[in-house]
């Protein structure tokens, strides 16, 4: 049994977390903001939707995290013919010619599964989405007439945004269960690009990832750490009022004087942020405050996480949907500009 984590131990855990972050940043270059956000998601126990082009280091990043957490890592590619059963079991004939049924990717490692990467989630069918949603929300799945617990699972899903053919857009309910949607872009700095191209260290991913000390942060202690952390970091009444105002601004931006060019603000949004979304935002903000060495949340914590936690939760009216790539970031920025604290 693990020992209870107390408030007094939080600074030590913070040091470990920062060291972990440093190691990851040495493994994947030029992704510091994304790494910080993923780290916050890890310590808040939230699932993450990744967005980014191919070959920018998403898998390497996730493998590095899995290596540091020490739990098992599974990866599955989303395809159009992937069925829910493919995640749970697979059947084959063994050497004796007898049919066998073995646990699939989700069940194979049992409760040791810590990091589950679903590549190109929007290529998979809605049936697969619904299975995954249950696994994400309840951290358990039903198979072989019993429930399997996956207490430490954290799902990272990649959404291909280039091709639209043969894809199934994630439903609003599915998107809402992801704590964050993190954009991973190709680094722009020439020095980093040069390093990535020519330094042999980055050519062999396996070797690169193995450079991270295993069990820096034991995955099986993360849930408890997250609970302690959420209890320990405080939110003042003024901060609650600020968060509430932000939430209301996502429901009715017009009431807060948010204006965008060529947009009728009264009809822009079809849905604002959900209570779950706001709860995720506050939890993530607490984790950020802890990583910054504070025991209280500041507006800047919320502001830093507002875009990654909110962008995928706001749904535009269909007439503006084709401009969502441009309008959503503008809306998020405008809301942050309009709401004051204190």
């Amino acid at each position: 049994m693990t020992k209870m984590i107390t408030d007094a131990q939080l600074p030590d855990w913070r040091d470990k977390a920062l060291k972990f972050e440093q190691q990851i940043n040495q493994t994947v270059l030029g992704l510091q903001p994304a790494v910080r956000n993923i780290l916050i998601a890890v310590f808040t126990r939230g699932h993450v939707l990744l967005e980014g082009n191919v070959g920018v280091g998403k898998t390497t990043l996730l493998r590095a995290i899995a290596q540091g957490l020490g739990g098992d890592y599974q990866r599955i590619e989303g395809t159009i013919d992937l069925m829910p059963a493919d995640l749970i079991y697979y059947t084959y004939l063994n050497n004796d010619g007898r049919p066998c049924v073995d646990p699939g990717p989700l069940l194979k490692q049992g409760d040791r599964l810590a990091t589950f990467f679903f590549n190109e989630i929007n290529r998979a069918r809605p049936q697969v989405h619904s299975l995954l949603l249950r696994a994400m929300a309840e951290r358990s799945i039903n198979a072989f007439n019993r429930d399997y617990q996956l207490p430490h699972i954290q799902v990272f899903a990649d959404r291909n945004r280039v091709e639209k053919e043969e894809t199934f857009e994630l439903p609003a309910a599915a998107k809402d269960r992801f704590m964050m949607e993190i954009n991973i872009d190709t680094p722009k700095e020439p020095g980093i690009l040069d390093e990535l191209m020519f330094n042999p260290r980055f050519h062999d991913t396996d070797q690169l990832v193995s450079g991270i000390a295993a069990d820096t942060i034991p995955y099986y202690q993360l849930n408890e750490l997250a609970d302690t952390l959420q209890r320990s970091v405080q939110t003042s009444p003024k901060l609650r009022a600020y968060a509430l105002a932000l939430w209301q601004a996502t429901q009715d931006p017009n009431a807060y004087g948010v204006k965008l060019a060529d947009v009728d603000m009264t009809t822009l949004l079809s849905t604002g942020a959900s209570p779950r979304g706001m709860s995720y935002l506050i939890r993530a903000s607490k984790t950020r405050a802890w990583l910054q060495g504070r025991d209280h949340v500041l507006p800047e914590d919320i502001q830093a996480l507002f875009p990654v936690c909110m962008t995928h939760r706001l749904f535009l009216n269909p007439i503006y949907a084709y401009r969502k790539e441009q309008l959503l970031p503008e809306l998020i920025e405008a809301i942050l500009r309009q709401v004051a604290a204190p």
Partner: protein
Amino acid sequence: MIHKKVGANLFAQNTLNMRINSHLQILSLFMLMLLAGCSGSVTEPVSYFAVETPRPFGYVIGDEIAQRIVIETRPGITLQTASLPARGQINRWLNLTQINVEQQGEQTVINLRYQIFYAPLEVKMLSLPGFTLQFAQGDNVLSKDVPDWSFTVAPLRELAVRKNEQHEYMRPDVRPPLLSDSAALMGLWSSCSVSVLLGTYLAYLYGYFPQSRRRVFKQALKQLAKLSEGDMAQALTIAHKAFNKLNRQPLFQHQLTDFYRQHSEYQRINKSLEWFFDYSYHYFFSGKQAVTPQHLEKIRELLEQCRKIERGAL
């Protein structure tokens, strides 16, 4: 033969003597005349006397005629003003409206202005009556005559007053066209506009407009003055609102660098601003900030400094 020659010489000699004598006589006569002239100018009491008059024709009823008399006298001779005609009616149709005597060195200038009221039926010759000017020299009295001056007066209209179907003959003159005042009006408008603009700008600088961002801190200080002692939350909120208004959007501590880029004048109080945000964040979000009257005073000082910057006085 010789006798003839001598006789001819004598004749020539006599002719020459006669010519010289006649020349001498002419010269002496000329000199006498010059002397006579000189002695005359010394003895004449009035050396110069002229009556200057305008044209002697083309006058109508109501016209004024100016007459100027210029006199130069020896020193010691004075004009007796009593000898001048009196101002007022001279006869039935003539008035002397103005009389003015000027002394310019040895010259005396008399300006007379007559007005005629004669309504002739046709062109008629009239005369300004002459008079005698008197000068006193000690006990002696000298006199000088100003002669009559004749001029012609014409009627204003024909004898018979005619009636015309369209227009009345005796009617006032057409109204004169008005002088153009557009340039003056333009000048007035432009100077008024410039004054209003300058006044508005000055009012903006002094922060007299209710919504002006130049009076953000003026209002904040007013609100702060009304606060009761120790109401720190309200004081901080007032200051935050003032900064938000100045920044046109909420201002947070991590945005101070951008704020200084837009309002570089506030960079001077960077330390006070950093302290304010630190203090406010601790007060509002950590709940562990002790409050003392000095802190409130510090916030008031910060706002006063901001007010000075806003007025351009710092």
